[in-house]
């Protein structure tokens, strides 16, 4: 193969294109680390449509960051206290969104968007007071309208006390599945779950 003489003045911009270089002719030995270190640093979290170059089974492909973000992700809370009916699993009406990356939280529930099936991690917490005599307080996750028994029940001592409850769960979900939170207490009359402590959040897990 004959060598090409580089013209005086060097090679003009974009002069080397696919017509001059055979497929797969450029390998790693022809690349210098300055291809990365010499470029401008992003210096912030990439946006969901920023791209990486990867080898997918030996084939170069580009991939959006959206595929390796822990999204969809959401966080919600109560804007005011909510009464929990005595001895009744009561749906928590989360009315204040903290964040919602995919607009997947609405009507007190998180719904898995189309194309976002996979494993999700959810956590919730709350506080109520005035419990005693072995009364209970807990928060329960519901999937598609049915309770899933992943909560931890708390039992009050003999004297009135405030009780905190937390629950977390990892679920393998399909598009359209929805998750809600219900609260339970049996103090003998309605008791509030405090807006100061109540929160429900979740996000998709990547790589599992």
């Amino acid at each position, binding site marked *: 193969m004959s060598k090409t003489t580089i013209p005086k003045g060097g090679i003009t911009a974009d002069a080397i294109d696919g017509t001059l270089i055979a497929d797969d002719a450029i390998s790693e030995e022809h690349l210098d680390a300055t291809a990365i270190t010499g470029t401008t640093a992003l210096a912030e979290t990439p946006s969901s449509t920023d791209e990486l170059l990867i080898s997918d089974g030996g084939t170069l492909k580009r991939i959006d960051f959206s595929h390796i973000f822990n999204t969809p992700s959401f966080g919600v809370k109560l804007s005011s206290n909510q009464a929990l*009916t*005595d*001895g*009744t*699993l*009561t*749906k928590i*009406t989360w009315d204040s969104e903290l964040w919602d990356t995919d607009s997947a939280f609405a009507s*007190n529930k998180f719904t898995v968007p189309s194309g976002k099936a996979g494993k999700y991690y959810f956590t919730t917490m709350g506080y109520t007071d005035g419990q*005693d005599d072995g009364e*209970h307080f807990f928060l329960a996750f519901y999937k598609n309208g049915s309770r899933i028994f992943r909560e931890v029940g708390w039992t009050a001592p003999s*004297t*009135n006390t405030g009780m905190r409850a937390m629950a977390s769960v990892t679920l393998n979900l399909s598009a359209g599945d929805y998750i809600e939170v*219900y609260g*339970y207490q*049996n103090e*003998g*009359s*309605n008791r509030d779950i405090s807006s100061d402590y109540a929160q429900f959040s979740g996000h998709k897990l990547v790589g599992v």
Partner: protein
Amino acid sequence: MSLTNKITVYLGRKPDFLKEVLLQDDGSGPYIKEWNITSEKAKPTDSQLNALASEATKLGNNNVIRKTRKKSYGDIGDQLDLLYKDMLAGKGDSTGEWFKKIKAVKDANAKE
């Protein structure tokens, strides 16, 4: 008045509201989600439960009074200490301080 009190009056006892009878509120008020004691008594209709409203209210009010009384009685250790002192003074009867305190709480919080 609460659905739990109506069901308690209907059954004549307080059931386990996490196993025997499961109540749920999806935002439109509580309802019976599961009734797992059919062998003991059939699941009540709404009209059957509504007919027990006044008794259920009384039960609820008395539960509140019971809790108020309990709180007012004070720590059980302090009560035992008071009883001990009464007995030491030969007043282990209705002339003692413990009895007076308990009676005052009961009188101030009479059940219906």
